């Protein structure tokens, strides 16, 4: 015990209570272990990345046809991921899909269409089979969250983890604070699962409002940043993701409208999409975004979405389903005074996220092995912060794998958890709290604004060596300012930590983008000075780790090998006998 701190000893600490985190908690709870979930929100009832329900779920079901087998999907993976995928981890995830689907059904989630009593499966997003189940997933996360609560996990709400506890490359907990009460919590754990999502708020969009983003603006790469500082390896961080949005509101859902048969028009009234892809508006998202970017650069903007030709029943269906993706989207059109039945809808490119670049099974984040463990022993990752991800299903399956991996790791571990280094903990706390009311300090909003301008200008959809170097200079200069950040209350202290994490993630992104001297997956990583894919030299992962100077350092790793082959979990100074807290092998 320590005055002024709350201390918790547990078995598994989960950071992030979304789908991946909840699914990681479940195997540990089932094994009778103690679980603590640390969550910035207040409820486990909603999904982390979308804030609301779910309407489709990607899975192999082994229902009979060849396309519905893991082997068939795996054969297509290199092509689906433009050759950059960890086949070992992806293979484990895809093979586990049928089992995890059944497990989630056992929690009361009904994936079947009530009208037919069967699964409604659809082929979409360029996948080679009808892997998506369309279903009413309004209660999807609520049921999984309920399972976690029923398992008696301790859930710390409105709580942000700030620092991982790592000794001899082994994770044993985290320091966190509650930004409603100001209470600081030191959590010691036998294993830690990082499931805190993607990185947002890192570039500008049309509205100029930082929190108006396609993906969840409260996901700020906290897991990636904390793990990097603790020595973990990250990959695919150079790949970004953008979409097309109604101009002024970075809402999801435009692609759904396009799939119903809407057209894009440029300012001359031309349907230009066929100039970019023979599938026209049915091309992949990356292609659509790319085409619109190009039309704007050619001076053919504004670009519009045209639904006026669609039959009445399609328009009715569109109106009914508009709010599935974003509840407030109908209100936006209503308040704007436009209707897609009669008006052209002006579209924009969204801000960027670091989040699997619209590609299934090629995640951007912490490199993991086939058990979900990162390069730091006892530190697991899943969901949008891990190197294999794929929407809700990817989060659920790798989350569960990581939870099971953590159970095995905990069972193979002997000895007491290391003692907390209180001098270090007090220093981290004092540094964090020093932002509160700092006179003459830099407001976190201004700090983030500089990051967004820098990324938009030089690390966005048109990258070059010179631009990336300029960005890295600015981002490194901002690192020095982190010690001058100011907040006016506890909520602001949380935002200051998020701002630091966003900055570090963008520095990692720019460093990896500079290393990859080719263009891959179109605007996900376009180097204007290296405009073509280079399969000869770049069928490789860019692995990013903390260098000796504390800055991101990169290694190019052959994409034909599992990523885990490239990281040794033990540092060279470690030997089996000298570890105070070692895996008992």
């Amino acid at each position, binding site marked *: 015990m320590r005055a002024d701190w709350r201390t918790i000893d547990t078995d598994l600490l989960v950071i992030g209570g979304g789908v991946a985190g909840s699914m990681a908690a479940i195997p540990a709870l089932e094994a009778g272990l103690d679980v603590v979930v640390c969550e910035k929100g207040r409820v486990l009832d909603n999904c982390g990345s979308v804030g609301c329900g779910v309407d489709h779920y990607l899975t192999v079901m082994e229902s009979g046809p060849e396309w519905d087998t893991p082997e068939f999907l795996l054969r297509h993976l290199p092509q689906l991921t433009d050759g950059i995928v960890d086949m070992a981890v992806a293979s484990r995830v895809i093979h586990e899909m049928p089992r995890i689907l059944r497990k989630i059904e056992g929690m009361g989630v009904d994936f079947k269409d009530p009208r037919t009593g069967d699964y409604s499966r659809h082929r979409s997003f360029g996948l080679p089979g009808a892997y998506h189940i369309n279903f009413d997933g309004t209660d999807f996360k609520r049921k999984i969250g309920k399972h976690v609560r029923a398992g008696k996990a301790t859930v710390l709400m409105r709580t942000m983890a700030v620092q991982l506890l790592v000794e001899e490359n082994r994770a044993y907990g985290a320091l966190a604070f509650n*930004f409603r009460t100001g209470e600081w919590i030191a959590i010691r754990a036998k294993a830690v699962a990082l499931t805190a999502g993607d990185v947002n708020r890192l570039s500008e969009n049309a*509205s100029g409002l930082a*929190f108006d983003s396609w993906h969840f603006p409260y996901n700020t790469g906290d897991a990636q940043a904390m793990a990097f500082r603790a020595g973990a390896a990250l990959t695919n961080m150079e790949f970004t993701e953008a979409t097309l949005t109604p101009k002024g509101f970075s809402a999801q859902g435009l692609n759904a409208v396009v799939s119903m048969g809407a057209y894009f028009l440029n300012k001359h009234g031309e349907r230009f999409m066929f100039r970019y892809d023979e599938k026209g508006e049915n091309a992949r998202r990356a292609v659509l975004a790319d085409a619109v970017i190009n039309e704007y650069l050619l001076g053919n903007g504004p670009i519009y979405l045209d639904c006026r030709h669609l039959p009445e029943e399609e328009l009715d269906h569109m109106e009914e389903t508009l709010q599935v993706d974003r509840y*407030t989207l109908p209100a*936006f059109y209503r308040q704007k005074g436009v209707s897609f039945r009669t008006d052209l809808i002006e579209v924009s490119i969204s801000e960027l996220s670091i989040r699997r670049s619209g590609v299934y099974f090629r995640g951007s984040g912490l490199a993991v092995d086939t058990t979900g463990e990162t390069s730091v022993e006892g530190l697991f990752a899943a969901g949008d912060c891990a190197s294999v991800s794929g929407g809700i299903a990817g989060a659920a399956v790798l989350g569960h794998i990581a939870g099971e991996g953590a159970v095995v790791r905990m069972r193979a571990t002997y000895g007491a958890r290391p003692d907390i280094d209180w001098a270090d903990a007090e220093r981290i706390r004092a540094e964090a709290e020093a932002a509160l009311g700092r006179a003459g300090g830099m407001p976190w909003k201004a700090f983030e604004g500089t990051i967004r301008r820098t990324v938009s200008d030089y690390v966005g959809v048109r990258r070059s060596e010179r631009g990336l170097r300029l960005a890295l200079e600015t981002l490194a200069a901002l690192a020095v300012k982190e010690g001058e950040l100011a907040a006016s209350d506890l*909520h602001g202290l949380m935002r200051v930590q998020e701002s630091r994490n966003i900055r570090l993630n963008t520095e990692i992104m720019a460093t990896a983008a500079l290393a990859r001297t080719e263009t891959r997956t179109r605007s996900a990583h376009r180097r204007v000075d290296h405009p073509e894919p280079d399969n000869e030299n770049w069928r490789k992962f860019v692995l990013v780790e903390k260098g000796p100077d504390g800055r991101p350092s990169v290694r190019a790793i052959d994409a034909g090998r599992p990523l885990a082959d490239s990281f040794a979990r033990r540092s060279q100074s470690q030997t089996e006998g000298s570890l105070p807290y070692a895996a008992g092998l």
Partner: protein
Amino acid sequence: MLPVSDPSVHNPIQIDPELCIRCNLCDWICPGDIIYKEENNKQTMPVVAYPDECWYCGLCESTCPTDAITVVFPERMLRNQTDVVTLLGKVV
């Protein structure tokens, strides 16, 4: 002590005091820690403490048991004048 909202910033979350039953569900559901409601006090209204950090997700509006909440978009979102080319980077 509850935070005080800045009247110069657009408030996207408009709460009708006639309809609001001061139940604190909006505070509970908000994923961004934007809405603060004093617990166990049926006299005080929820405060939209950080209006410029709103995601416009509408979870508060959809959860409110008395439909007291309306999400209102600002002019810069509704009638946006940004030149999209400025978002597409500088080639140096």
